[in-house]
């Protein structure tokens, strides 16, 4: 293995291109071209004017957040409690409703279906929501919420509430909520599956000890299961919030962010302004905001995971 160090022309090349580095090169090239460069370019574009290309500081951010027809934070409407509240606010509403429901029902279902006969089949069915394309999920929910052809309205008529049937996603006050409902149906399976895996990691001895001590199921759940699922919960919460922040497909298919921007979300507004509307600068600003939120949140959660 010893080459004549001083005379070999490949010497320095070999020192640098160690196997460890060589193996990294393809990935490095891809990430450079398709991830790093675009992100930097997006950040740069968010600070320049769309028409002149000059540096304009935070003007784009200001305009997409507070101005225009569909500001991301619609101050006046928020104060009055009227829709549309703004894309950013809608994302937070989404998180506020979707996250607790998915986390709790995920945990609940994982525990419930652990011991039930045929539990694995039921789990697979629930999980299908995660596997199907989101646009199909959106279509599914358009279908369900339709005035005439939809199950939800039929159910309402069945229980005597036939008077309030309508196409739920077409109206400003219920559009966002109906899509959120759809997204809960789609994403609960994810929480359930991850919690199921987490449950398997809990040592049986703990449960056996609790049984011997005569603890009730309720107590066992809260004192043993939930704490032991802490790291799992962190993963579920992180992935779910990221999914909620990036939501696009369902909004596009069901409402196009309407009516009147009532179901607008960050990703959709970015598409509408930046790509459909061709305003690269404003679109980049929204993209940067979205990215800051996702990276920031992820970084925070990763740091929490390291804590004992």
């Amino acid at each position, binding site marked *: 293995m010893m080459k004549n160090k001083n005379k070999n022309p490949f010497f320095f090349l070999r020192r640098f291109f160690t*196997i*460890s580095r060589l*193996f*990294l090169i*393809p*990935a*490095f090239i*891809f*990430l450079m*071209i*398709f*991830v790093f460069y*675009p*992100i930097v*370019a*997006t950040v740069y574009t968010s600070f320049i004017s769309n028409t002149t290309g000059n540096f304009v500081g935070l003007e784009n951010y200001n305009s997409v957040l507070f101005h225009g027809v569909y500001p991301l934070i619609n101050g006046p409407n928020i104060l009055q409690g009227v829709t549309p509240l703004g894309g950013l606010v809608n994302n937070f509403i989404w998180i506020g409703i979707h996250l607790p429901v998915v986390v709790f029902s995920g945990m609940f279902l994982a525990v*419930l*279906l652990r011991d*039930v006969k045929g539990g694995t*089949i*039921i789990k*697979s069915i629930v*999980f299908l929501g995660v*596997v*199907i*394309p989101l646009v*199909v999920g959106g*279509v*599914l929910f358009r*279908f*369900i919420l339709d005035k*005439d*052809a939809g*199950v939800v309205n039929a159910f309402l008529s069945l229980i005597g509430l036939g008077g309030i049937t309508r196409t739920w996603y077409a109206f400003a006050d219920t559009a966002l909520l109906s899509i959120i409902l759809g997204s809960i*149906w789609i994403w609960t399976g994810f929480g359930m599956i*991850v919690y*199921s*895996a987490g449950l*398997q990691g809990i040592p049986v001895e703990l449960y056996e000890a609790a049984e011997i001590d005569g603890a009730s*199921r309720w107590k066992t759940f809260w004192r043993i299961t939930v704490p032991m699922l802490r*790291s799992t919960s962190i*993963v*579920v919460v992180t992935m779910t919030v990221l999914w909620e*922040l990036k939501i696009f*497909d369902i909004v596009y298919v069901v409402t196009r962010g309407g009516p009147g921007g009532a179901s607008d979300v*960050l*990703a959709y507004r*970015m*598409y509408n302004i*930046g*790509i459909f509307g061709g305003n*690269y600068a404003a*679109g*980049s600003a929204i*993209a940067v905001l*979205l*990215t800051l939120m*996702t990276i920031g*949140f992820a970084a925070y959660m*990763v740091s929490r995971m390291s804590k004992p």
Partner: protein
Amino acid sequence: MKAKIATFFSKAKAYLVSQFKKIKLPKEKPKITRFTVLTHVAAWVIATIWIIPFLGIFIASIRPYSEVQFGWWNLQPFHFDPTNFIDAWSGQTSGYPLGNAMFNSLLVTIPATFLPILISALAAYSFARFRSRTKDILFLILVLLQTIPQQAVIIPIYTLFNNLHLLNNYIGLILLHTAFGLPWQVLFLRNFFSTLPIEIEEAARVDGASYYKIFRRIVLPITLPALASLVALQFVFVWNDFFFALTIITDPRLALAPQVIPLLVGRYFANYSLLTAGSILVMILPIAIYVALQRYYVRGLTAGAVKG
């Protein structure tokens, strides 16, 4: 050399068996308590809630639209009508043949599934076996890169592809998906490689095998289960992707399967029979992959969840 591998496998097997014995539960008491009944009922109610939408679209797809218009649950009259699927596939009513679109999706999904595996395996091996401070920092960056939304890169990528005439060209889309798949795949594989005992490789090294040979002959075969996870997850993810397809492939002749679905909604008759038939066609493949590789899919998904 072979002897050493055999020893490794027998040791692993012994280890796994001992672990499995540990978690074997004590014999179930056949007593049917009120609680058991309750949980089973709850479980099946949950199953029903989740399956109704799927049931709905299935029934709607096999009947003519006139019967479904006011509710697919009205089972009289019931005429079996497979032409919806044929219509969706050939694009007779809509002008967008799903058959072509699904083929296009395959053209993109298959390369975009296998190419990143190659690249991420190399990179992950490097991360796992050759530690360094820089590597740890790079790894952290990779962890955070997973969270980046597609919107963050799309505008510069769109411009780049436009200049390179890669718009409406599957190559660009494949490379883009590859790049986006790399962070989480490298993460997953590195964790996997870390769990592989290094003795085999060291022994082979002593015997004079090159790193490449070690990688190809020893590490890769053992890694197959992990690779199966990557295949399952990446395939479903690329097939289901909508945003990149929407922005990069704009020629309807080249559209991918998920792109055609919103076109069916927005373009013509809200013919739910046609729409549901189309949705089922698009859903089949990801569901099939999930069912076939279920164990690996779930394992891949929960990899980060079940830590210590």
